[in-house]
């Protein structure tokens, strides 16, 4: 069974350049159905209104951080099983543990490369 690359992917980052980079990298691995949100609240609104197969979020955002977004997603009955990848510069052990405890599906530390992104997506979607 192959990954459904037509699925909607929501990328969340308060930094437009990063959204652009991730979108282009996803496009290169054939994920073309990509939506963007620039903070946690906007992302939550889109997730509740839409139908996404994967969330890729930054951590360091305001006012709602990526960790808080993850917690909200896991607390939402309809969204709680949503695959959620954190892409962040937060590389301290305490951060990784906090994300794992909040239910993160995988964790990518910046700077990252396309291969790591592809590998983690495959793993999260059950093909790694």
């Amino acid at each position, binding site marked *: 069974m192959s990954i459904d690359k037509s699925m909607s992917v929501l990328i969340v980052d308060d930094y437009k350049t990063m959204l652009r980079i991730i979108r282009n990298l996803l496009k290169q691995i054939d994920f073309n159905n990509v939506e963007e949100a620039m903070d946690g609240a906007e992302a939550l609104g889109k997730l509740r209104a839409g139908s996404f197969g994967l969330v890729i979020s930054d951590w360091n955002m305001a006012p709602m951080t990526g960790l808080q977004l993850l917690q909200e997603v896991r607390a939402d009955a309809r969204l709680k099983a949503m695959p959620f990848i954190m892409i962040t*510069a937060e590389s301290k052990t305490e951060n990784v543990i906090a994300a794992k405890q909040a239910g993160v599906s995988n964790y990518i530390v*910046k700077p990252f490369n396309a291969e*790591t992104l592809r590998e983690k997506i495959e793993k999260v979607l059950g093909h790694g």
Partner: protein
Amino acid sequence: MAEGNSRLGSRGGASTLAARLAEIHARHPTADPDMVAEVVRSVLATMNGDLSAKEASVLAEVEELGRTIATAKAEIAALEVDVINVSHIPFATDELDAIIAHTAAATDAILENCETLDRVAAGLTGQAATQLQVATTRIYEACSFQDITGQRITKVVGALKAIEAKVEHIVSTFGPSDGEARLSLPQAADAVSLLNGPQLPAAAMDQSDIDKLLASFD
């Protein structure tokens, strides 16, 4: 210094008493005991209101502290520390903001051209298309430097602002100012906020470390 009931001036009082007794003895070899007693009472009376040794020590320390503060105020005034807040730190933060803006603009330009290359690659086939895509992928990856450097610079700006607040506090406390305003120092960062930002390479975990840590939960 002796403690207890010794009084400042006791030594002086004793010498005065001795002198007076000697003088009396010289003038009156057979001095009247009443006269001696009067002299003693007179000397003791001059000691009223003197400080104890402990009080004198505290007073000396307070005086020394006062002199130190006055010296510090003069030195702070001479250094013109307020220039740090008025000029140096705003200049440094503006420069850092400019670095972020310039590198962001440059990164956007790079990405725009990279997207053009991607569109060109889509029209190609074979090795040329593959090589072009690999090259654009590397460019996209490299462009994420902008995010990392932006976060690092933001941390530096935060540190400068903390220094600025502390300098303001020192100047308002010790500086030769009007003295009324007292700045409250910024609270320490919330320990549970977990917004640590990018770590320096020596302290950072790489992707393999994170993978191992995550795997340890499974």
